[in-house]
């Protein structure tokens, strides 16, 4: 049987060691193989693509362009193919990000990325926080509702359609922590750092979605 290929994009935005390790553990003995995407790629080879990211929105977008990953990725997403974006890898699905300047995003899920507003909040939002499900979905079955995941971010996805939000988290106010449109998922937290429930979520994405 031909193995399904999972692409893990190294956008030079934080190290990919933990997510790489997590995927390998999950696909061991299963009909999948993992390929790291570091540059221009043929998107027809992949059945799933995962993009972890840390740090700045603008940096990740410009890295993806520099590495010639942006175009094939954009096409892949425009065709509603299976994707999991982690943290900034989720945020760049939006129309635009507002940091020091405004950066155009991939424009896959309507909305924009803005900083947490309240002056009373400790920023970044760093640590374990729980998610509340809006609706059931293959990647967040297995009783992941109300479980804690590890977050590190100062920006959140705003002006998103409610129908694209699978789960919310509360920090100062409610913000989207898992989003979905078609076959495209984004998680604001780091499942690869979130112990067993995080691994559960990655496993569900790979095996069930």
């Amino acid at each position, binding site marked *: 049987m031909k193995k399904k290929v999972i692409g893990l994009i190294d956008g030079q935005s934080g190290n990919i060691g933990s997510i790489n*390790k997590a995927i390998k553990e999950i696909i061991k003995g299963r009909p999948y193989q993992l390929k790291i995407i570091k540059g221009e790629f043929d998107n027809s080879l992949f059945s799933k693509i995962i993009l972890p990211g840390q*740090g700045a929105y603008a940096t990740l977008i410009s890295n993806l362009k520099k590495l010639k990953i942006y175009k094939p990725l954009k096409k892949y997403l425009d065709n509603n193919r299976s994707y999991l974006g982690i943290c900034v890898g989720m945020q760049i699905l939006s129309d635009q990000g507002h940091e020091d300047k405004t950066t155009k995003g991939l424009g896959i899920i309507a909305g924009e990325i803005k900083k947490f507003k309240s002056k009373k909040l400790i920023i970044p939002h760093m640590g374990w926080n729980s998610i509340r499900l809006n609706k059931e979905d293959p990647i967040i079955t297995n009783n992941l509702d109300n479980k804690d995941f590890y977050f590190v971010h100062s920006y959140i996805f705003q002006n998103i359609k409610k129908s694209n939000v699978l789960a919310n988290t509360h*920090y100062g106010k409610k913000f989207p922590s898992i989003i979905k449109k078609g076959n495209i998922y984004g998680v604001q937290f780091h499942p690869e750092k979130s112990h067993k429930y995080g691994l559960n979520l990655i496993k569900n994405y790979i095996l069930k979605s």
Partner: protein
Amino acid sequence: MLKTRIIPCLDVIKNKVVKGVNFKNIKVMGNAVEMARYYSLSGADELCMLDINASYQNRKTFIKTVEAIAKVINIPLTVGGGISVLDDITDLLNAGADKVSINSAAVKNPKLIRQASIKHGSQCIVVAIDGKRHENKMKVVVKGGREITKKELIVWAKEVQSLGAGEILMTSMDTDGVQNGFDSSMLKKVTSNVSIPVIASGGVGNLEHFYLGHLTKSTGLLAASVFHSGKYKIKSVKKYLKNKGVPVRL
């Protein structure tokens, strides 16, 4: 709701966890990789490890230890000690650290904080500050408290925030190693003057100390001896805190 993080800290020489009161009488507590694996499994929210004897020879083994630990845990890992230039930070992140903690190198060269946060993002740059009271002022100290710098603690804490630090690891050298509790007044002073997360460090000896640490508005509570000696399990600390109404991940 955001949970208060319980963070065991491993003081490491090569691949061994050691303990020493004020860096004297150093005693081996165990194998670093085994202890890291144990803490990750038993509910630690994050792990911190420091190279406390970063000589050229020990460093290679230490980096290998970081790599080995990153492979066996799936919680965030902060690594510090032995950092002097930007390349040292890159090396640790490449070895699998999620965050890097800079201490005396930042005091010597504050620009390093800005360079590191621009290159790698604020979220992975922790500035460790060692504080001590001296002539009625809270000062920044280096070399394990042996050298008092000219910097005032609060001025420095604000400065590291504006330079791009994502978090402060605040150790009071007045309370470190003696297990009489965190330095609440020093911690409160820091948390009320910055808006980035502060991890409290130095002085935990019993369960109540964790609770008092939480009251300082520190969002992470770091401890070493009480965990390494087996006095408390991470879970029992969290259960205690939960009963006190502190949000924790159980």
